[in-house]
Structures are given as C-alpha cells and as structure tokens.
C-alpha cells in the first residue's frame, strides 16, 4: 500500500542542492572568524614524552592552542567510555588529536599546528586481531578495567565488548549432522566516504555556544559537547545546514567540542573544514575489518541443523558506538535461517587503527558476505542448488530464528523468489558470466522521537522536527505523512529541522530510523491538528466533529462533500484564537523477547520490524586478470509499507552501489606502522557512475503492525547488506571456489583462481 499516488515526489531540498543555492556548513562565514587546524598523532601507538605548544602560541595570528590540559578531563563515549577530546599521555592511532589551533587563516593555523613540538616513546603496535586477543598481547588500553562501562557489556584484555548468542546444544546437533563445513572469511575495513568532508563552525555569545556542523545526529553532537565541555544542554545549540552525505561517517559526536573550545579560548568564531585525507583518517566512524569463522552442520537432505561461529571485529583504538557490534555481527552470522542449535561468539577487538563506528548497516555486509558465501559452500556440499538450499532453511512466519525469535508475516521467501525470478539465474550464460544470490536481514530500531506540527494563518503547514536529513529523503517524506492526516498536499508543508533548539529530540539520521520513529511522531502531531480542525469545522458546519472529513484542502461533513469549509479559512479563524498546533512522539514499537542465551547482551537479539532482502547479481569475470564487473542486480526488499517510492528506490540503488564498492574495490590498506596507506580517492577506489549496473528493485510490501507509520520498517541500511555477498557467490561460481577476502579485488580473484594465497 503506497500512500502516494503521486508518481514523483520533489524533495524539499532538491532544487537548492541542484542549483547550488543550498548552503553547507563549510559555506558559513562569520565576522572575525578564525580557522582551526588539528595536530594529529601521526604515529599509531606511543607515549607522549614531550608536548610543547609555546612556539605555536607565540606565532603572530595564532589566537588559541589547545591540548588535553586546556579542556575538562572527561573520558567519554557511549557504553564503553574510553577516550578524551585530546590525547593524554598515550596516542593510540595516527588520527588521534594531540592539539588544536585557531588562527587568522589556514596557512597560519597549519604552520602553528606544525610548530607544536611532540616527542614520543614508541609503544608496541597492536594491529592483528587474533594476536591482540592472545594471552600476553600488548594492550591498547592499559587502564581498560577502570572504564565506566554501562549495561551488560562484557570486556576482556583488548576486547572492548564481547557477545555471544547460544541456543540448544551445538555439539550434539553437530554430531548428528551428515556434513560439517568450516569456513574462514576476512574482510578489510573501509570508509563511509560522504562526498562532503565535514565542517564545523562555532560561535559563542556570552555563555551560550551555537555550533553549525555537518553531523547526522545533532542531538548526539550536542550531548557530546555538553559531556566533554561540561555544559548544560540549554547553553548549546547545534544547527546542521545542508548535509553532503553521511552514510554513518557523520554519526556520533566528533569535533564539535574541539571547535567550540577553540572559539571560547580565542573569543572569536572558529571554523574547521576537513580535507579528504582528514575525513578518511580522523573520525571514529569507518567500517570495521572482520574475521569470521563459521561452522555449520547439515543433514544429507539439506536441512541446516547447527551453526557455530567465531567473529573478531576490529574496533580500532577507541570504542565510539561500536559496543553493540559483536551482537549484531553474531546475528548476521546466524542469519535468517532456522536451526536447532547455535553458538556464536563475537569480540570487538582493540587495535591501533582508526576507530570503527556505525557505517551504513554496521558489521552486516561483511558478516552477510561470509555467511552467504558459506551457505553456497553448504549447498555445494549436499549437492543442492543454492537457491533451493535457502528455500529449505530460511525463517518464515511462525518459524523460530537462530536466536529464538518467532516471526510474524515476513517477506523473506517472496524476496528470494522475486529477486531470483527477475534475474538471469538458471539461464544459459556465457562461460565468464554467472548469477550469485544472497539473502539478508536487518533490524529496525525503535526509539524516542518528537515533532511539532502547526498550520499558520494562511493555511500553510509546517513540520518542526528533530529528525535529520542526511540525503535519504526520509525527512522530506514526513511532509507526505502530515499531508495525508490533514487532507492537504505534501507541498503545503514547510520543514524546520536540524536545529536542537527548535525541535524536540530525535536520534538523528542513524539506524534507518527516521521514518520509523519520527514518522510516528509526525502522524501523531498531525492528528492533534486534525482534531483541532475538525472542532473548528464542526462549529461552522453545524455537525459533530467526528463527522468531519479532511480531504482535498477542505473540511467537509461526511457524506456531504458540498457542506465544506476550506482549511485555509479555518486556519484564518484559528489564528485569531485557539491556534492549530500539534505535537507528537508516540509509543515506540516493542523489542520482541527471545529464547537464546545472550552474554554481553546489547538488546539486539530480538528485532522489531525485521527487514529482509534478496539480491541476485549477474557478474562477468575477466578470467585472465580477475577483474569482475557487475552487470545487473535484481533486488527484492521487505521493508514493510513503502511510503515514498521514489526515495525508496533511491535508497536501494545507493545501497547497492555502496555494496559493489565494498565487494570489489573499496578497502583500507595498512602499513606495518598500522597507518592507512590509501587515504585519497586516487588509491581508495569508489565505484563511479560508469560502473553502475542495471538495477531492478521490487518491494514486497507487508505492513508490519509492530513498526513505523502504516506498517513501514526502515530501509536506509538494508540495501547495503547482501550485495557484496551476492557478487561473491557469482564470482565463486566462475572461479570454482570462494574468494575469502573482502574486497574481492582483481588481484585477489586472480590469485584465488590460480590457487595462490595472499
């Protein structure tokens, strides 16, 4: 059920962005503004033996130089607080901030940052996940036991967060299996890579600071500033101008406090604009490298009976928001399959790499790639067609999943059927082409969220929301929801968003949650206004409020369309007295309970609004060079009701392109010094428009009662999950065995086909 009959929906921010009149954070310039530059550690693990800023401070044009000594000594981060604004005593990755400078211009600020004297004593580098977990490994955090960890988070030496999911007796079930298949898959880390490198501008007026920043999560950013600079929320206002993409890279709290602290010390507004290289090195949000070991037991008839898994996730030097990654990764290694017994253990391992954090569907594309490659290995072991093997083992309505959640009506089977049907699967193809298939799932994330709705005297509406637009268009879609409740058009509504002092709380553009949660808030707020309109109309039309229908910009009496008054007229009346103002937050959907035993539980074993997908990808392999091209992707998604089809297709297409990049060309390469070697777009290869395959998308629309408005689930992350896995299965068919490293670069594919290991 699409609520939009309109074939095209024009984004409220589209014309501004396309014509160039839209303003981004880097476009903001304030009177007297200074430029910020950071001094980065430049080494991966070392003790600071000397830090002298005197020469930098003495340079003409330098207004402020800050180090850890100049800001409150606060250890922050959600769940596993393990970092400070500036390094204190020890630096743990190359992009860690040692100092910050504000100066009259960029050249002066850079010269001053360079003039800061830092001396180090090397500490042993920790950059191998397995070695880091071994007894006696050097520690990334000597004081890990003193951190004020919250929740049920389990920690160990060099392990920031451990989770396991266990159901049934795996050993017994494995013993009953006819075949047991073990696989190891290793994924490199990669980047979110929004086209806009971030910018932050801070300006103080008295004790209050206003921060313009390119963040996906303005309320999180504000909370970070409040926590680290020890300020009340009432004194911090965060505003986000147009955002040039995020993909998770701009989730969390990043450099807002550093710039605010510089502005305070300098008594001038300060602006920070990142270079591409800084964007790739400094933020604590990049996609995590991962080692996945999976062992599954199957019956000769293809019934999956048991699965055990061991997962090591590269946390990098600090935990950012990654404490939930192990549980999420474990769920993805279990996958949307039924089995009697499962035991999966996952560890988030500290290393001296850039910190990991939520990038579009954290842990899932890698874990799905490992699981779905393994699943094709299982099918081959029992001599079954891989699609048939999946049909025989997937979860469905009334079936219990690996963690013990029992599902309602879900569209996984229909996704599998639809994607395969739309693809060339089973067709006669040239001998260098194949179709690979992968299925996937992803949770929806219920949470608190609020919005105000008002209608002004001229009848124009406004949605004032805490939600953040990061390019997905979901905030734009909120206008459709308000319009539907009020019998108006989406274009009748303006949006006020991305300002923490104007709107109620929302989690931000993270976890595919905007439409799910803020949509609910907007509907509830609009319903308040609808009730107000009906009361007003009832008075005028001499009818009961319950008999008033709002449609086509009018309020009319049910059954008598001619007995009507326009909303514009009612708005004029209301403006003289009881105004048209609504508010909403609504009750978030509930997390279902599960029967599995979860150590280190982060609340993610039972999923509300679970989303399902299948991608069938037609690939071509240049056998002599190992270069893979993706020709065609058939995608089918169950994300519940699709409210804005244009935006929904955009999400799927974008997610697939990101998946193609992760599958084939995008991977961070590290040197022996644990520093990234490909921190520019010349050597870190994104996909281009010229590489884009043909994409067919089908939505399996099953309204989910325990999800968002009209039964909508999330959609922003799910399309990114199965693409790499499906590509891998196509490639494996052509090579004759899986390529066990991600990205499956041409050289790795070639080496695999030549029987070499790298």
């Amino acid at each position, binding site marked *: 059920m699409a609520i939009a009959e309109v074939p095209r929906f024009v984004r409220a921010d589209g014309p501004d962005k396309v014509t160039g009149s839209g303003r981004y954070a880097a476009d903001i310039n304030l009177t007297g503004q200074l430029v910020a530059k950071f001094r980065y550690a430049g080494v991966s693990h070392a003790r600071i033996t000397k830090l002298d800023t005197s020469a930098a401070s003495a340079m003409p044009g330098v207004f402020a130089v800050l180090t850890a000594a100049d800001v409150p000594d606060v250890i922050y981060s959600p769940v596993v607080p393990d970092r400070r604004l500036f390094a204190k005593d020890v630096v743990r990755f190359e992009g860690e901030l040692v100092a910050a400078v504000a100066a009259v211009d960029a050249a002066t600020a850079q010269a001053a940052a360079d003039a800061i004297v830092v001396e180090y004593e090397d500490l042993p580098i920790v950059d191998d996940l397995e070695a880091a977990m071994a007894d006696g490994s050097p520690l990334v955090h000597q004081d890990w036991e003193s951190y004020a960890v919250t929740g049920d988070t389990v920690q160990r030496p060099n392990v920031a967060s451990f989770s396991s999911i266990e159901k049934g007796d795996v050993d017994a079930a494995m013993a009953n299996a006819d075949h047991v298949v073990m696989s190891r898959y290793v994924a490199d880390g990669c980047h979110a890579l929004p086209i806009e490198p971030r910018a932050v501008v801070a300006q103080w007026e008295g004790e209050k600071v206003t921060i313009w920043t390119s963040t996906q999560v303005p309320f999180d950013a504000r909370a970070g500033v409040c926590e680290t600079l020890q300020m009340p929320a009432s004194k911090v206002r965060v505003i986000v101008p147009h955002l040039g993409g995020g993909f998770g890279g701009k989730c969390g709290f990043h450099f807002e406090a550093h710039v605010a602290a510089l502005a305070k010390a300098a008594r001038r507004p300060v602006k920070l604009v990142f270079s591409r290289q800084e964007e790739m090195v400094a933020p604590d949000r990049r996609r995590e490298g991962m080692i996945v070991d999976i062992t599954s037991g199957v019956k000769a008839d293809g019934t999956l009976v048991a699965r055990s898994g061991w997962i090591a996730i590269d946390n990098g030097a600090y935990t950012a928001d990654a404490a939930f990654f192990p549980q999420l990764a474990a769920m993805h290694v279990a996958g949307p399959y039924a089995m009697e017994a499962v035991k999966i253990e996952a560890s988030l391992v500290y290393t001296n790499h850039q910190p990991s954090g939520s990038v579009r569907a954290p842990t899932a594309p890698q874990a799905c790639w490992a699981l779905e490659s393994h699943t094709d290995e299982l099918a081959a072991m029992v001599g079954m067609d891989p699609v048939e093997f999946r049909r025989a083992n997937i979860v469905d309505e009334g079936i219990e999943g690996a963690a013990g959640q029992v599902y309602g009506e879900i569209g996984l089977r229909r996704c599998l059927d639809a994607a395969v049907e739309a693809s060339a699967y089973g067709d006669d193809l040239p001998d260098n082409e194949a179709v690979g298939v992968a299925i996937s799932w992803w949770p929806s994330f219920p949470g608190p969220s609020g919005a105000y709705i008002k209608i002004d005297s001229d009848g124009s509406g406004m949605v004032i929301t805490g939600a953040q637009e990061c390019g997905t268009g979901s905030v734009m879609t909120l206008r459709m929801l308000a319009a539907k409740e009020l019998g108006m058009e989406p274009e009748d509504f303006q949006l006020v968003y991305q300002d923490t002092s104007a709107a109620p709380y929302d989690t931000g553009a993270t976890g595919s949650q905007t439409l799910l949660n803020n949509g609910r808030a907007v509907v509830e707020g609009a319903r308040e206004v609808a009730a107000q309109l009906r009361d007003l109309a009832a008075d005028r039309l001499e009818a009961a409020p319950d008999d008033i229908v709002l449609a086509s910009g009018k309020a009319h009496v049910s059954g008598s369309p001619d007995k009507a008054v326009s909303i514009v007229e009612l708005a004029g009346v209301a403006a003289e007295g009881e105004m048209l103002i609504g508010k909403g937050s609504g009750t978030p959907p509930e997390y279902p309970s599960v029967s599995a035993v979860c150590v280190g539980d982060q609340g993610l074993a039972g999923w509300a609004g679970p989303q399902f997908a299948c991608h069938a990808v037609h690939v071509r392999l240049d056998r002599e*060079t190992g270069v893979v091209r993706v020709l065609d992707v058939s995608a089918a998604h169950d994300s519940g009701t699709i409210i804005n089809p244009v935006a929904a297709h955009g999400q799927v297409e974008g997610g697939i392109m990101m998946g193609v990049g992760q599958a*084939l060309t995008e991977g961070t*390469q590290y040197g022996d010094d644990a520093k990234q070697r490909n921190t520019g777009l*010349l050597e870190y*290869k994104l996909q*281009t428009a010229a*590489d884009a395959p043909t994409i067919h998308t089908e939505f399996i629309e099953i309204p989910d009662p325990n999800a968002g408005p009209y039964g909508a689930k999330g959609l922003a992350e799910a399309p990114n999950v199965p693409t790499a896995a499906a590509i891998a299965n196509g490639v494996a068919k052509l090579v004759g065995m899986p390529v066990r490293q991600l990205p499956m670069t*041409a050289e790795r594919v070639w080496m695999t086909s030549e029987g070499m290991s790298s």
Partner: protein
Amino acid sequence: MSFTIATTVDEALVALGAGARPIAGGTDLVVGARHGKAALPADLVAIDRIDELGGVELDSAGVRVGALMSHAEVMTDPVIVGSYTAIADASALVGSPSTRHVGTLGGNVMNGSPAMDTGAPLTVLGATAELRSVTGGRTVSLDELWAGPGRTTANPGELLVALHLPPARDRCGSAYVRLEYRRAMEIAVVGAAAAVTLAADGTVASVAVALAAVAPTILSVDGVNEALVGRTAAAAGPVAGALASEQAAPISDLRASDRYRRHCIGVMAKRAVDAAARRADGESIAVPVNRSIGIGAA
C-alpha cells in the same frame, strides 16, 4: 609570481625563456599541486589559447598532431581514429568526460608519467616530438624525450608544439589496452599498445609493442618484431605477451603487486596485438578497445 596568457607560440616561448612553466589543461599541474606532489610554479604561461598548437594536419612526412589537441578531440579525430587508432583508444580512456575535454595530448606526453595512456601508443606508432624554444627547434624521438618518472629531457625553455607520426601504411592496425579496476577515473595499472602490419598472406609483416606503468618510463618491448614476423596473427599475441611479461620491470604499490602486474602486462600485450592485428585485417573495433573487448566491454 606571474601568469601570462599567450596567444601565439612566440609569446609563449618568450615567457618560457624568462622561466615560466607552460600550463595547457592543468589537469596534471594543478591537480598535482593540490595533491601536494609539487608546488604550483611561481610563473606560468597559459598555452591553451594558442591556435597554432591545435589541429591535425596531413603532410608529406605523415601527420602532425598539435600538442594542444584535447583527449576528447583526439578520440574522435577521423585521421587518428582511422590510421593511428591506438592513440584514440588511449585518449578515450583518460579520466572522465571533463578530464578529456580539458586535458591535452601534449600535457600527457610532457608530464612524463610512466602510467600515461598515450605514451605507449605514440611509441609503437613511431611518433616524434617537435620542441621549440626562442633559440630554435628540434625534433626528438619519444625514447629520447622521456627521462624517468615525471622527467623529460626538454629544456625549461622548450615547448612541445606537435607530435609527428609517419605516414599510415596499408594493412596496419594499432590498439591500446589497459588494465583498469573501474570504468572511469582510472589510472592504468598496466597498459600495452601494439602496432601490427600484416603481409598479403595474413602473417605479421612488422610489429611494435610498448608498455605503460611497468617501468620508470614507457617501455618498448625488445625483439618482438624479430619474434613475430612471419607468424600468423593468432600466434603473435601470446608470444608478444610472454616477451612483455619478461621485460617488464614493475613495482609493487597500492594498486597491484609486481607479480600481478607482470602477469597482467602479458595479458594486455597479447590483447593489444590481437586487436591491432584484427584492425590491420580490416575489422572495425570501436574506440576504445577496452570498451569493445574484455572486461570493460558494455
């Protein structure tokens, strides 16, 4: 610091004589400076408005290709596409449409990158470079011109005005193939060009093969003519590939290991010889070869 906009070659030469560096499309010079490769020269002379530096002219000695021909012009020029196809293959692969419209053949040659795409094609087609300075002119082979990565033997006062190609021969075809990981905005991981002339009986009458991105400068494959003359076109490719792999001196870097480069240069050389021979035989393979055969094809 100065920026001179020259409208004639003579004006440009005066500025060069006074120490300015030429800037054509700026896609190497400016992008390199932004990337921190080398600071932008203090004194620049823009040569992009000099009409004399453009165009393709046929003369008794063959063809003169102006240094200022953009890649977009090169890839569609009927003479180049018709008789010197490998150069068109190369230009058609450069960067993106915007790079090709701004970047020039002369800039590609004078920038001297070992990964330059037009270098191997120009080499196998026997191109020479016409350099001019306030004191006069000279014509040098490309082999003499390129001195190492990013270095040429041209004097600071010399401008590349044109590339000269010998007259087109009958039953001659050429092609340039490169290994690329994506279909736009790519730099050659390795690349190979071949020019093949066929005898009346379809065997190879003469052949030249040159390689990009496997040595400090463009590498001509030695002994390939001797090894291939008299062979059938079909047999020629693999032999050329083996020679190319043998003679390449590739490095390991972020794009590929030396081992993989050495393997792939053989594949590229084989494909270049195959495509060149097919073109020599009259077959029409659209420019660029990378989009017509192999992995980059539509």
